[in-house]
Each structure stands twice: as C-alpha cells, then as structure tokens.
C-alpha cells in the first residue's frame, strides 16, 4: 500500500532546501554552531538573546505539485517561504532551485529570478492601492520593463481567468477581500513564473470565500501545473489542496508526507493534536487503508475514493466488503471494519491503523 500513498512516481525536485538555519538577533552567525550542537529555541533566547527562527530545515519540493507548509503562528512557516525568493536571508544553509543556488545570486540575478521564476501571493493581498485592478495585475510585467499597454493586455487574460472580468477599472479598495486576492493571484500568474509562493494566501478570507478561492486555485493548477508552495495554518485547507504536506513547529520540521500519511501516521503528539478534529472519513482514501493481499467479494470502488463515499457505495450494495480498483485493475480489498478502524480517532488509532501499514 505504500505505493498507493505516493500516487505518482517521485517527481523531479524543483525546490530543495538543505540544512537551513535562520536565527534572529544581533550576531546570528555566531549562534549557528550552538544550535547545531543542540541548543534549543528557549535556551537560545534565554542564554544568548537570539531567536531561533528555523532549525535545520531539509525539504525537497517536487515539480508541478502543491507543497503545503503548515504550522501554527510562530512556527516559522512564513519565514521559510521567504527564503525561497530570498526576501529573508538565511543564517546558514542552501536553497537550490532547478539545480541553481539562490543564495549565490548577485543582486541582478536575484532580481531576474524574482521577476521571471517565482511570484508571490500575500496574506493581506499587498496590492498597490493607487493603481487600478488591471494595473495591479500587470504589475509584475511592468516591473520587467514591458510597456504598460502590452502588459495590461497580457494581464487581462489572467483577470478573466480568476473571474474578475468587468472589474479592470476598479481600485482595489472598491473590491471585497476575496476579489482583492483574486487580483493578487492574477498578478502572480501574469508573469508566467513556474513557482508560485502563497503565503497564507486565503487565511484572511471568510470560510466560504476561502473554499471558493481554493477551487479557483485547484482549477488553475489542473491546467497550469505550477510548482506551488502554499503556507497555511489550516489543516483542512492543507489536506484539500496539498499533494505534500510539511509540518513545522517552533522552527523545526516535524513531519513531511502526503496528506494520507500525515493523517494515518502522525509523527508525534503535536501532529496528532493537529489532525484530531478533521473528518477522517472524508480525508482518507480507500487506497490508503485497503488490504493489498486478501481477495473478497463486493462492489468495486476506485482507490482514490474517500472512505465516506465508499461506505455509501457498500451500504447501498449491502456488502460488507469491496474490491479496490486503480486504473481499471483490482489492486486490493477493503471491509467495513477496516474503514471504521481508520475513521476512529487518533487516541485509539495507533494500534488499529498499524494493521494496515
């Protein structure tokens, strides 16, 4: 079943972060060795007066996938994403994108990288209030030196694509929050950058609008296949949009994996706590909890169907078990008991789910 957790074969790494440390304070370089030697966040603050922002982060982000970085406020997730386009300089470590070290770039190279390769969407939208929607959407292009008229024509496509047609000549302040963030998204997409950095992009929106924007993004991703790095503190959002999830706590990477892995095998109590309140029946897929060996009778369900839906299928077929299918071929089987055990909450879970791993 491990093969099913990683739905696709390992994709090419787009962004790789190696041994990254970020320490805030008057003399951060001097503190790196101490942190490497095992000094933790509280001691570093109490004894050395420095704040440990990120502690030995290692992560490979695959190409054309949505990588979610999750954590509570203060966990360092916004700091981490800003290292990718070097809005924040690391204290130590490497950031490698397409085999190129971002940290070794000179000012001009870096500017070019930011203009062409990675664009960013911000939590509080960060639009230019004195410019019209069309001018904001074209901002990244005008920065590149493209003439205003051409830039606006090119941006128009993205304004339409995010559903803002007809609002080109409004000022941001005349739009609702959700619409402002659509402008932010259009602005980021207009530069055709391969990497999209989204810093809590939907966190400031109310729940309905947030779901709406997630759909907009997923629809776009279906067609564009960008490498999206998405920061959030909302697990539901992470599970919904993430191909991979990395969980940060106090600047330390606690766990990395697919949504299914995170839910089925939380690395520690912190992660367990995180996933405590989610609707497991809706998140977990049949393929993640099936038995690859046993042959049983029953209706057929696709491996990426949510348990909740599979239960529905089996109940209406009045069957205790079902055949799991992937790409038209049977790959395993599942019983009602398997599903109920998987849905059971974290507390009783460790033992129950171990049977399926």
């Amino acid at each position: 079943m491990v093969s099913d957790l990683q739905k696709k074969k390992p994709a090419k790494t787009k962004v790789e972060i190696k041994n990254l440390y970020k320490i805030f304070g008057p003399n951060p370089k001097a503190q790196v060795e101490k942190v490497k030697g095992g000094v933790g966040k509280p001691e570093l603050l109490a004894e050395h007066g420095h704040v440990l922002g990120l502690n030995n982060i290692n992560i490979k982000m695959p190409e054309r996938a949505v990588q979610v970085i999750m954590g509570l406020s203060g966990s360092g997730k916004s700091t981490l994403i800003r290292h990718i386009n070097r809005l924040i300089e690391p204290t130590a470590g490497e950031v490698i994108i397409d085999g190129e070290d971002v940290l070794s770039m000179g000012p001009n190279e870096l500017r070019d990288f930011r203009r062409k390769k990675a664009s960013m969407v911000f939590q509080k939208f960060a639009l230019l209030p004195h410019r019209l929607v069309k001018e904001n959407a074209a901002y990244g292009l005008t920065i590149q030196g493209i003439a205003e008229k051409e830039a606006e024509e090119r941006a128009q496509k993205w304004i339409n694509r995010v559903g803002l047609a007809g609002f080109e000549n409004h000022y941001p302040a005349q739009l609702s929050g959700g619409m402002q963030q659509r402008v932010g998204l259009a602005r980021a997409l207009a530069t055709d950058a391969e990497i999209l950095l989204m810093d809590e992009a939907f966190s400031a929106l109310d729940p309905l609008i947030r779901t709406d924007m997630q759909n907009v993004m997923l629809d776009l991703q279906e067609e564009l296949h960008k490498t999206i790095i998405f920061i959030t503190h909302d697990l539901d959002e992470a599970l919904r949009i993430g191909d991979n999830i990395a969980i940060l706590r106090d600047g330390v990477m606690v766990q990395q994996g697919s949504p299914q892995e995170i839910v089925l095998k939380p690395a520690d109590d912190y992660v367990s706590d995180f996933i405590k309140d989610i609707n497991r029946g809706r998140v977990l897929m049949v393929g993640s909890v099936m038995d690859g060996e046993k042959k049983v009778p029953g209706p057929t369900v696709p491996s990426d169907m949510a348990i909740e839906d599979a239960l529905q299928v089996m109940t209406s077929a009045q069957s205790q078990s079902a055949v799991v299918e992937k790409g038209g071929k049977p790959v395993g089987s599942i019983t009602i008991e398997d599903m109920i055990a998987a849905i059971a909450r974290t507390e009783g879970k460790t033992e129950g789910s171990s049977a399926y791993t």
Partner: protein
Amino acid sequence: MEQLLTEFPELSRGALRDLRRYIDGNFKDFTREYGELIETMFDPLKWFLLWVQSVLLATPWPIVIIVLCGLAWLASRNWKLVVGTAAAFLLIGWLGMWEDTMVTLAMVSVATLICIGLGIPFGILMARSDRLQAIITPILDVMQTIPSFVYLIPVVMLLGIGKAPALLAVCIYAIPPIVRLTNLGIRLVDREVLEAADSFGASYRQKLFNVQVPLALPNIFAGVNQTIMMALSMVVVAALIGGSGLGTPVLRAVNNQYLALGLFNGMAIVAIAIIFDRVSQAYGKRLQKHREGGHGV
C-alpha cells in the same frame, strides 16, 4: 565657597568680549572673502523670482484672476473655492493692494517651489537611512524654532538687503515641514506592499517611484501645504530685509500706528493663505480618490 553658590561662575567680561569679537571677526572675514561668490550663487534664484514677479505684474489683472481661478478649479473642482478666490482678489485689488499682493505671490510661489525641489529629495534620503535622519532631525528643529531675527543677521551680512536674502530667510523657515513629512510618509508605507514589490523583482527606483512616493503622497501633500503656510507667515519678516510685497506696508503701519493699513494688508495675507490652504488640501484629497470604497487595502 559662598560666593560660588550665589554668583554664577561666568566668563569674565573681557573674555566674553573677546569671544564675541573672535566670532564676529571670523564671520566678517568669511563674508569679505566669500560674500560676493555666495551672492552670485544666489543670482539665478533672484532673477527667477524677479521674472515671476514681473510676469505677474505685467499681466493684466483680469487675466491673473482668471488664471488663479482656473488653477483653483483644476485643483479642487469646487465652485465655492473658485468664487471665493475671485472675490478675495477683486477685493484686494479694489483696496489698492494689487501690486504688493503680486509681489508676495511671486515670493511665496518661488519659495514653495524651492522648498519642494530640495525638501522632497532630502526627505527621501532621510527615509532611507536612520543615521541621516538622526543628523537632519535636530537641524530641522533648529531651523523651525530659532527666532528668525537671529538668522537674519548672518543672512544680511552675507547677502545684504534685497530679494535674495528675503527668499533665503523664507526658505529656511518653510522647508522643514516638507522634509519631515516626506520622510514620515515614506517610512509609513505599508511594509507588505513593499515586500510585494520586492518579490516581483522591483529595483530601488521602481519601488521609490511606483510604490513609496505615490503611497506617501498624502503626507507629502500635507508637507507642501504646511510649507506654503509657513512661507506666507514669513512675508512680514522678509519685508524687513527687502522682500517687499504685502509685508512692507505692514511694517510701515507698525512704525506709524496706521491701524487700517496694517489690517488691510494683514487680511490680504490671510486671504491668500486661506485660498492656498483650501486649494492645496482639496487637491491632496482628490489625489486620494482611490481610497474611497470602504474596503481598506
């Protein structure tokens, strides 16, 4: 011991006199050495001022009023202000103060232009560097608080009596608000928006002209408004060293106790001040039209 407590341990009269003589002597030497050079440096400004003044005086008065009303309309789009401007200038002319008013208008406009031209770049530099801010702030404090009569002395010693020293005195007094408010405005620009500009690879110039200055405009405009007001309030002092204009009759009125003359000219200054203030504020507000809509950005 007792004497030390009851009498301040001051310099002896002789030493004090020597100190003053030393300073005066050095400055006089400096004046003799460089006075002419500095005066020629100020010549272009003086010519410009005289040119503006002669244009205003040579233009038939109805045209001047129409142009002023037109400017008020362009800036404020407010009929009441335009009517008020016309009425004020007609009254000023009718009460025999037209020429003095034009002279004052020229002085204030040129001084404001100089202050904007120097003040905004200085404010931008100041916003870039905390150290520069630490150096310039006390200088601005001195410029604003030192009694103007004190710096009139060296100014007159260097440049004599006339238009140039008057202009310099007005500028020294009027420039601090524009520098301060430009600096403040740029420092107050939303950090997120700046970060966004950075994330799209904006260069320093692109950030300055597309983000920082436009977003600082409300504050910069408040600075321009303050600068105009302060320049107007210096008109009488400037008249003292040859600035002429509406300040001269006021000085004459003070010396001779001509109540009505002082009042008329004083009210003319007030009228110009109110018109300039309202028009520039209305313009500043119109620049901020994009903030309307209720959803803060």
